[in-house]
């Protein structure tokens, strides 16, 4: 134990208050709700990865898009291509889901949410955390959160593919409810992606002289406006992608089968 540990002379100079917090509001609601929602999302995603009813023409479940192997139905393949060939026979989601999952896992909003909800570091502001030591993102493994911008680049590609899937659905079944669910999801996913803090930095945040880069500054102002809603977009797009994915699978399984499904 070091000189300045929890019971050090320096620590004892602070007000000695035994209670972990004196907050009287329901501070535990945010971490609890976060824990429940994220756990539900993880459970659903785990099930969806292994569920093989991911395509029913013209709908493609977002958790399994793009399909990159010959084991996918021909219509489901991205641009008709199957770069992974026939050796890959596992569910298509396993191939690509790491990219959007990595984007969300390293996202600045999600970090705040799961550091509070899962790791209790801290569970809420001015509520003592249970850990004896803390190094945060200053060393391995959490220093790896700094790869966020690379997941952002991948998320841009995934967002475009989901938009392409939605356009295909619109072309082939414009009156289908699934088409409009996929369109709404693609819009929300792309808005969430563009509202990312890394995107804000890349557009012009890294510059010191905005006035010398008027186009990039304009882009930064637009992204900054989106960025102010990043938390909301993160949550809404999480529900939308889960909802859209479940809807397509229910149609594929025949559970949802009304005329305009």
């Amino acid at each position, binding site marked *: 134990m070091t000189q300045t540990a*929890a019971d050090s002379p*320096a620590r004892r100079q*602070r007000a000695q208050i035994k209670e972990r917090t004196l907050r009287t509001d329901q501070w535990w609601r945010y971490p609890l709700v976060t824990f429940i929602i994220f756990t539900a999302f993880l459970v659903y995603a785990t099930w969806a990865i292994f569920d093989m009813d991911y395509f029913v023409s013209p709908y493609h479940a977002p958790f399994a898009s793009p399909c990159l192997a010959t084991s996918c139905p021909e219509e489901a393949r991205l641009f008709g291509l199957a770069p992974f060939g026939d050796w890959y026979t596992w569910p298509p989601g396993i191939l690509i889901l790491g990219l959007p999952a990595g984007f969300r896992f390293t996202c600045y909003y999600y*970090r705040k949410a799961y*550091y509070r909800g899962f790791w209790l*570091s801290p569970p809420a502001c001015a509520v003592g955390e249970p850990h004896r030591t*803390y190094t945060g993102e200053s060393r391995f493994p959490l220093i790896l959160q*700094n790869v*966020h911008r690379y997941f952002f680049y991948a998320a841009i590609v995934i967002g475009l593919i989901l938009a392409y899937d939605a356009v295909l659905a619109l072309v082939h079944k414009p009156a289908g409810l699934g088409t409009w669910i996929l369109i709404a999801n693609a819009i929300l996913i792309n808005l969430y992606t563009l509202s990312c803090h890394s995107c804000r930095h890349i557009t012009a945040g890294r510059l*010191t002289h905005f006035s010398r880069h008027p186009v990039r500054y304009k882009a930064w102002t637009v992204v900054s406006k989106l960025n102010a809603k990043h938390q909301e977009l993160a949550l809404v797009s999480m529900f939308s992608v889960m909802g859209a994915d479940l809807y397509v699978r229910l149609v594929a399984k025949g559970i949802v089968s009304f005329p305009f499904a």
Partner: protein
Amino acid sequence: MSYKAKFRVWRGEGGEGRLEDFTVEVNEGEVVLDIIHRLQATQAPDLAVRWNCKAGKCGSCSMEINGKPRLGCMTRMSTFTEDETITVTPMRTFPVIKDLVTDVSFNYQKAREIPSFTPPADVKPGEYRMQQIDVERSQEFRKCIECFMCNNVCHVIRDHEENKPGFAGPRFLMRIAELDMHPYDVVDRKDAAQEEHGLGYCNITKCCTEVCPEHIKITDNALIPMKERVVDRKYDPLVWLGNKIFKRSGSKS
């Protein structure tokens, strides 16, 4: 309309102390600092509290009210119910001098550790020419009144005294970001932000933003942009390669 409110106020010196109960008159329109002053005037003449402007601009009366870091002068009594017991304690992260007064010299020490604004050597005072859009990001951070509630609430040092030597806290990481974004500051602050001032400790849980009485978006506009600048410098091979190929300095763009 007046009523009698129940207060629990931390009394003590040098860390040792206890919560003392008081019943005290509250009048319409009053704030918590008014009640503390009434306690001084009527029941506890030796109760210590630091205050100055009573207008939310000097940052002196930072305290914890019902467990939340707040300015005493900006916390209206009307936000509490009449039967609520209101607990007032000093900021928990800093050593107590007496009662509600803490020793915030940690913050002054951290302020001194940050190199001051450094313009180019060939630009004389009076010759600075900047466009508004180039400085407005930094101007948001100049609203800071140095109440130090952000540093008080930050769990990196609030819950871990041992992190104090290596962590400047949100207030001074914001100062580093302010200077790094400034068009006329030539000091490269990215390595120091990470290595000396502990930016990596920040896990962006946004408590600093939540408690800021000036509503500065400390996390979104200062800490995260600074983290991204550090990524440019230390963790992004593509930026490093781009700097080499295009012969950019990599410090100020």
